[in-house]
Every structure is written in C-alpha cells, then in structure tokens.
C-alpha cells in the first residue's frame, strides 16, 4: 500500500471539489425537487469565466494576483446563467408535471455545452488554464500541489459560511422554511420566489469556485468538463442525503476518497487486476451510487426534502 497518505490526500481534495458542486444540486433539489442537469454546465461556464478574466488581464500578471478577479468573473458568469435558467426556463414550468422541467434542464445542458463549443474562441479543444508555478509543498507523508491550496482553503471556508448563513441568517432560515413547506413559508411573509433564486445563485457560485479549483488542478478547462463532473456531483449529493448541504460535502469527500482508492488499489484484489487505473475511474462513482441506493437510499446523513404528500 505504497503512498497511501498521498492517495488519501488526493482523494479528499478531489472530493472537496465534488462536494462544492454537489451543494448546488442538493440545494436546488431540496427546494424545488428539480435535478438541475444544467448545473454541470454552470460549473463549466464558471471555469470559462475565470479563464476569460485571466485572458483579459495583461500577460505576465501573476496567478496569485489574478485569482480574485478570476473568482469574481467566474462566479458572476455562473450566477448569471444559474439565475437566468431559473427565471426563464424553470420558473414558468413550476406547478406542472415534473417531466417538463427535467427535459428542459437536459435541453439547457446540451445548449450551454454547445454554445461554449461553438462561440467561445478555441473552445473546440481543451483550453489551458493558468497554473501556480513552483514545487509541490512537501508535508512529509504526502505533498500537495500549490494550486490545490486554493481548494483546501476555499472548501472549508465555503462550508462554514454556508452553515452560518443557513442556520443563523434571516434568509437562511427562510430557506429552511421554504424547503420544508413552501406554501406555509409564504404565509410567513417569505418571498419564496426570491429564496429559490438565492438557492440557485449560491449553488452556482460554489460551482464556479470548484471550476477554478478544477482548472488549477488539471491545467485546463473544456466544454465537456461539466457532464461527468455533474453526474458525479449529483451522485455525491444522493450519497450524502439529497437536500442536505452537509451531506453534499460529506458525499463528495466519500466519493473522492473512493475514486482515488479504487483507481490506485483495486488491481491488488485478485480477479480485479485489469480494472485499476484511470480508464475505470469514472465507473466507481456509479458503482457507489448503486450501492447507496441498495443499502441506504436516504443517504448517509438523511434526506432533506419537502414532505410532499
């Protein structure tokens, strides 16, 4: 079991990224019971937004200086698309049969992917994303890339801020109320439409942060990166308990951990020699999903969805 600590570290960092994306899925599902298929593309667009900021800055700007601006533009793009999707694609269909918003989400996902592919300069192949130069930081048992520092600081920060927001702030409590019982929330004077938009916006912002982390880690962004990442992130959300924001992060970490461990070590299990390595990386998330649905469908931390009769 060589470099187990390194694999662990890799897995958890990857998992934190999944977790951030998963929060967007879980918040939206918790409030309006919609799988926002376009969320993966919102993640991708955040990455491209950040890239755009980088490209607009004078060349030679250090990444550390550019990062806040990239963050700003990336989040702005994601949030805009997310809010736009809610307002113009999903809201008109609220109250009708559930199939319509799902199909709309799929259509939106495809359209956004293709829009970037067709219109963003040079997006037909992956576009390189700025990196933090310098050697990896050696922490003894394992080392981390400099770029990963961003996610290591951002993810816990986001979770803490979100937890405080949801439990302590007025809007946060309104969100809790809306996700438990939207009609009664209205009777409290809560503008549920605005709450829903806020949920979409927060999810989108977190996705943008994850996208920047993705770009820093893998050195590129491409128009397809939202598809698989989105699928895995929703798996993470289900794994942790759909609608549960803490579950989303936990689910993400578990998923990242599983993926890293399986990819590195499954070949040591007799009979599974050929199933290791990157080729099967994406399959483990699916296996995990099936296991969770079989054994504990409400997820690790339990669901948090409206009690619809």
């Amino acid at each position, binding site marked *: 079991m060589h470099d187990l600590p390194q694999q662990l570290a890799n897995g958890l960092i990857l998992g934190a990224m999944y977790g951030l994306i998963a929060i967007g899925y879980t918040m939206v599902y918790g409030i309006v019971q919609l799988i926002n298929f376009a969320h993966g593309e919102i993640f991708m667009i955040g990455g491209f937004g950040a890239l755009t900021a980088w490209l607009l800055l004078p060349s030679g700007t250090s990444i550390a200086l550019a990062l806040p601006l990239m963050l700003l533009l990336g989040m702005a793009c994601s949030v805009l698309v997310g809010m736009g999707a809610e307002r113009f694609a999903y809201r008109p269909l609220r109250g009708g049969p559930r199939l319509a918003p799902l199909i709309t989400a799929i259509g939106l996902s495809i359209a956004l992917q293709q829009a970037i592919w067709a219109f963003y300069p040079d997006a037909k192949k992956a576009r390189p994303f700025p990196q933090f130069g310098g050697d990896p930081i050696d922490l003894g048992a394992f080392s981390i890339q400099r770029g990963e520092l961003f996610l290591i600081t951002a993810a816990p920060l986001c979770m803490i801020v979100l937890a405080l927001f949801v439990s302590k702030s007025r809007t946060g*409590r309104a969100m809790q109320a809306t996700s438990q*019982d939207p*009609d009664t929330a*209205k*009777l409290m004077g809560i503008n*549920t439409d605005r709450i829903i938009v806020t949920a979409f916006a927060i999810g989108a912002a977190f996705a943008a942060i994850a996208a920047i982390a993705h770009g820093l880690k893998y050195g590129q962004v491409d128009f397809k990166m939202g598809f698989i990442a989105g699928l895995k992130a929703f798996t993470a959300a289900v794994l942790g308990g759909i609608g549960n924001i803490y579950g989303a992060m936990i689910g993400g970490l578990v998923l990242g951990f599983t993926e890293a461990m399986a990819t590195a070590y499954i070949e040591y299990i007799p009979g599974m020699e050929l199933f290791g390595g990157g080729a099967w990386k994406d399959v483990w998330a699916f296996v995990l999903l099936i296991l969770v649905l079989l054994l504990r469908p409400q997820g690790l931390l339990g669901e948090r969805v409206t009690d619809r009769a």
Partner: protein
Amino acid sequence: MTALLEVENLRVAYGKIEAVKGISFSVEAGQVVTLIGTNGAGKTTTLRTLSGLLKPLGGTVVFDGRKLNGVPAHKIVELGLAHSPEGRHIFPRLTIAENLQLGAFLRKDNAGIAQDIERAYERFPILGERRKQPAGTLSGGEQQMLAMGRALMSRPKLLMLDEPSMGLSPIMMQKIMETIGELRAQGTTILLVEQNAQAALSLADHGHVMEIGKIVLSGTGQDLLHDESVRKAYLGED
C-alpha cells in the same frame, strides 16, 4: 363603518371545476366570524385564496381598505392578514422557538419579537417547556397551539384559522376554543373555518354556512345555533 375584510362574489376554480362559486361576506374588526360546512364545501379554498396561495377566478377582496386581487401571498401577510393553515403545517425540522421566530419573519423589532415569544410561552406553557425541540415531535394538539402562536407572531390585524380542532381530542379542542375566546377578548379579529359547528357557532359573533361552493345561510352565531336546518345538518339533531 367599513369592515376590516370585505369579500364580494369570490369565485375560485381548480382547472375548470369551480370550488367557490361567488360568495360574499364581511368581517368587522374585533369580531369572530365563522364559516362552517362539510368537507368539500369550499371553506379551505376560500381561506387559501384570501391569503394569496390561490388565485381567484373572479370577485373582489378588500382588506383594510386595500384590494387584494393579484397581491402575492407574502405581501398579504405584510398587510396584516395571517393564516394558520389546515393541517397546521408547522415546520417539522425547525425547533418550536424557530417556528415562532418565523412567524415574526417580517418584523424588525427584535425586542418586541422576544416579548411576543415569551407571551406565547405564557399562553401555551407546553411550548415553553419544549422550545428547543423540533416541532415535528409535538403531538397534534401541541402543534395546533404552535401554529396559532406562530400566526399571532406577526401581530396580525385579522387572523384566519383553518380547522384548528381537526383531529384533536375533546380536551384539546376545548383548550383551543378557549384560546380563541381569549384572543377575541383581547381584540383580535378572527375568521374561523370549522367542521365542529357547535363549538364554532357558540364562539362566533357571526356565521355563514357553506355548501358546494356557496353560502347558503348566514346569521349571528346564536341564531344559527338554533336554526332548524343547521341543527339537522350539522349539529346532529334529528
């Protein structure tokens, strides 16, 4: 003197089925007015329309001099019309304290809110004992008290109660009715929807009997209590 609430020719439909077919009534400030009738008569639909959860097909609703047509639900609460819905609908995963706080969502005066919460605990001691418990763990009667307390937190001008006695034991029902009486004594205007006609009419200043979407009988609480057809239909007399 214009009434606090004026409903004129209200019509509400689900798709093409009209559940409320043109009813008119009013509620004066300080009164308790009750709507009685069996299931399906349109009482809950009426309340849900008044509080803005449903959109009417036609008719006008004027509350405190302000037309309510087209006003969204959360704004109606702002105007002073509170609704404690049928089935109580407390927020199960939030604590009692948090539920009460949500009732005061629109208020900014923290001191006043804290005071009102204390008052709610005085009025319903059981809530005070369990204030940190998730509301979903309460019994039906306790939840009803919480719902009423929560609705009062917004210091409404008019409080609408939808079937507060539903599913409650006779003792609890008694307690609820007593509480309504106390509220009335303190000057709160109340619109009460009830299936328990006896209790409701005993309490009410004025009452209306609804059947399949229409008001078929109106009068003071006492008069209705003694009315022949009402006794036959709703009070179990032979």
